[in-house]
């Protein structure tokens, strides 16, 4: 896959992701099954989510940022079952709704970034 295609897909997904409402890290959002963040972390790696979104869900050259503010749970489920861009589809056979709930909990549990102004290396 070319970097151009990946970036295009990333941009498309990001357009959805950035509109997500910030969920609270410790609680399941309305409509979402209870999630186990520790199990979600293992699933995030086992199922290759990290490959495009990186281990913290921070995004990168191949995929958009999805943590710590992921899409609302139902939106996440809808997208991974039938992605509109280049992202490979995850069927129920591969990842159950409970698996996705655990991943969702893991993503919400990721730490907030430090303020940019507090990081000297990111100074202008």
């Amino acid at each position: 896959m070319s970097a151009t295609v990946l970036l295009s897909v990333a941009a498309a997904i990001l357009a959805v992701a950035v509109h997500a409402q910030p969920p609270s890290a410790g609680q399941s959002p309305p409509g979402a099954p209870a999630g186990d963040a520790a199990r979600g972390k293992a699933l995030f790696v086992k199922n290759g989510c990290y490959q495009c979104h990186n281990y913290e869900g921070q995004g990168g050259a191949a995929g958009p940022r999805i943590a710590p503010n992921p899409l609302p749970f139902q939106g996440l489920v809808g997208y991974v079952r039938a992605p509109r861009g280049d992202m490979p589809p995850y069927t129920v056979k591969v990842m159950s709704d409970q698996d996705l709930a655990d991943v969702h909990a893991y993503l919400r549990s990721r730490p907030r970034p430090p303020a940019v102004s507090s990081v000297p290396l990111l100074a202008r």
Partner: protein
Amino acid sequence: MNRRGFLKRASLAGAAAMATPGAAVDAQTPAPRAASTPIMSAAAETAVPSDPDVLTAERTGSDFMVDVLKSLGLEYICANPGSSFRGIHESVINYGGNAHPELITCCHEESSVAMGHGYAKVAGKPLGVFAHGTVGLQHAAMAIYNAWCDRVPVYIMLGNQLDATLRRPGAEWAHSVQDAAAMVRDFSKWDDAPMSLPHFAESAVRAYKIAMTPPTAPVVLVLNAELQEQPLGADVRISIPKLTIPAPPEGDSHAVAEAARLLVAAEHPVIVADRVARTPAGMAHLVELAETLQAAVINQAGRMNFPSRHPLNQTGTRAIADADVILALEANDLWGVLNTLRDQIHRSSHALTKPGVKVISLTSGDLYVKANYQDFQRFVDVDLAIAGDAEATLPSLVEAVKRATTGDRKRIFESRGAKLAEASSAAQERSRLDASYAWDASPVSTARLCAEVWGQIKNEDWALVNGTAGWATRLWNFDKPYQWIGGSGGAGIGYGAPAAVGAALAHKPHGRLVVNLQTDGDLMYAPGVLWTAAHHRIPLLSVMHNNRAYHQELMHVQKMCNRHNRGVDRGRIGSELVDPPIDYAKVAQGLGVHAEGPITDPKDVGPAIARAIATVKRGEPALVDVVCQPR
């Protein structure tokens, strides 16, 4: 007649051929050989021969070849040794004094060519490569393909023993070939197999001229072993043709005027730049065009085209979607800029541009294309196609734009430029925010890695010569024409490390701090190039983006796992570089390079880079292995 006696006669016959056309035919006719090999004895070995054999020669054909190479200005020859070019190897180091050109000892022919690839993009001229015409070229082939796709000149010379009756039994047969260059003819610009020294002189100069004429590309000369090793009489004089590099092809003046008219009239002109800047002047020309028009620039980064923090730099923004006129300069994949393709079972695509957009292409790619290897990408509908070298054409395009610009348009340009500057500033802020996510994560985020490197080099005279430039271009201030050289061209893995060493070799006289963001999978193709850097004291800072995988391919395999609905937990088989994890610091140390790592804590990255830079400033290579997030 013994072998050398034959060669002497052949040489004289060849020289005479200059004045007596047709005489050379006799010189190529082999002398009769003995019917059987004589049985040697002590008496035979020690007796004074009745017909004294000539066993030495003060001057050989390969000496003349070195004279020719010197006349071309070749500074270096990259090679690992091979018997088929032993003659010219010896001539370079002894007759030529191992200077201009100097032999650079390599450990793989792919490294030799990729070094030449990186070198040429900094030096603006090729270096030479020696390789066997068979096994050496087979090793070198992928690197030649990369250089060809990237339109970069590399001057490749292959050893070959063409005369079957003169080959030593065994390996020399396996190392001989009828048409050595055939294997790479589809992805080299020109080749020849000279049959005499005058022929070599003409072809050597011709090859250099062709390689350096835009679109530049690799060329191949086959050096017959007999031609290299034949004695030359002291009175033999062969002239070396004069080298004159053609002026690069400029676009047609009428077409340039029409392009200027379209650009000046546009409300949202966008300039897409890929392999534009062939020379340090290229960036200045593009900046002048963009500033004259106050047009958005999307830098495809095939070369150091445009400053990363210039207010008109709109890379990564939606500028292409808003464009009403697009000027594509040496765009390798213009279709990919204008469209997106969805890589699912049923591949589909859609345009990223709005209807009615006018597309102008200005590229030397329209002057040169081959059929078999399809690096030319998908065909694009363009409204105005200008065949010519973009860098050479830019000055006349700038002047045409200035002539076509009225006072009213100038005011509109200024208003547009202010908006673009705001968008650029916002994009830079967004980059800093994006980089802050996973800031303290382990493995180290690729953004943190680039920020740590930037923190150590930003006050130096630096150049980035390899790596995934994404985060670097978002966070670093690229504002000098030598600070980036583009990528591999053909996406053949194994380019990065040797190209970085070659580029560092070209930067060395300038005393710049040369940085290589080195991926792990790439380094494992031919890590011996680190030894070459150590051996030749080539200062180079390599910071590893070590994600312990051939990660691009890992994502492809995962996609197939998903598509086939069989789970993705086994998708890493065959793509990961773990169990055991490779200790790149030890690899580098074993090859004579200062190295630290593996580093997993982001707080340790900066200090390790600082120590490595101290080594580099002493004129040596250094490597810092950082275990990173995938992308």
